[in-house]
């Protein structure tokens, strides 16, 4: 229901245009009274169901235990900067791929950004990156042909190894068995995402070499004056 509009316009704060008697007439209180035989209708209070008699508690704690304060926090993913949209070229500022220009795909539920190099172009795989370590440029790549629905935070979770029972002798030898081999499934995912992307990248002249090159500050470049 729309919020109730007052029939008494405000002249200034605290002062209405119409007097009490005028408002009485405007609201039609006389009509309500007339309908009810000269008296304002009143309803008897609804009988509240009396609460069932509470049994006296059998146990009272000796010390007063403080109740922790109420926490109504509603966690949600970090607010995405307005300059970042699917297909935007981002510059990564820290980590192994610092300076690399990558394509943004979507924001995951944890707040991290899903990006891809594409791998063939600059060696950056499907990866998560924090928004704070990224500069958004105004260059956009067409990502309409790419299906990245299935990627979420669980996809990137570390594999939990089953703990072996502590046998002293073979303990140190058996550990080095599985090194981090990337499962074929992930390689195929990378290929399928990049296939459509690379097509749309090659449609724009120089964009592929642009993504392959790293960003760096040169002499005379002032970051606060640069337009990205």
């Amino acid at each position, binding site marked *: 229901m729309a919020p109730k509009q007052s029939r008494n316009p405000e002249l200034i704060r605290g002062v209405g245009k119409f007097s009490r008697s005028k408002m009485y007439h405007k609201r039609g209180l006389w009509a309500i009274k007339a309908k009810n035989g000269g008296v304002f209708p009143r309803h008897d209070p609804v009988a509240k169901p009396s609460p069932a008699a509470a049994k006296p508690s059998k146990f009272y704690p000796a010390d007063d235990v403080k109740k922790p304060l109420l926490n109504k926090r509603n966690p949600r993913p970090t607010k995405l900067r307005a300059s970042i949209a699917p297909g935007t*070229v981002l*510059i990564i500022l820290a980590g192994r791929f610092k300076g690399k*220009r990558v394509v943004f795909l979507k924001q995951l539920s944890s707040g991290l950004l899903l990006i891809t190099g594409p791998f063939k172009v600059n060696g950056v795989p499907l990866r998560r990156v924090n928004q704070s370590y990224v500069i958004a*440029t*105004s*260059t956009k790549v067409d990502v309409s042909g790419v299906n990245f629905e299935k990627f979420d935070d669980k996809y990137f979770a570390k594999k939990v190894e089953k703990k072996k029972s502590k046998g002293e002798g073979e303990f140190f030898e058996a550990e080095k068995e599985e090194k981090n081999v990337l499962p074929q499934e992930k390689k195929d995912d990378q290929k399928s995402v990049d296939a459509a992307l690379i097509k749309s990248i090659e449609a724009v002249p*120089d*964009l592929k*070499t*642009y993504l392959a*090159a790293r*960003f760096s500050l040169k002499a005379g470049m002032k970051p606060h*004056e*640069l*337009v*990205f």
Partner: protein
Amino acid sequence: MPFKRHVEIGRVALINYGKEYGRLVVIVDVVDQNRALVDAPDMVRMQMNFKRLSLTDIKIDIKRIPQKKTLVAAMQEADVQGKWDKSSWGRKLVVQKRRASLNDFDRFKLMLAKIKRSGLIRQELAKLKKESAS
């Protein structure tokens, strides 16, 4: 050695500081040793310190504090905007603005173009050197 651009009624100047930065105005009166009354077709007439003005070569023929429409007519007749756009100062400002608004991708393309151009120049130079040496 002597000054060529004088503060006088009708001198066109460029505002180089403050809210109106980059605007072309005409000096219509001098208030005192430090301030002038300036006016332009699309702004309210205001006083300004000379330090905020950079004088240009352009001068128009007006009387002291003309009416707005007289000023506009005089500026049209002298073709102030046209002269400004043709002058090297005016053209430089356009280039500076364009360079400042370049995007990261634009700067990359510019770098590629510069490398290509200097490559071609070097080739020609090498050819000429070879010819003059032989």
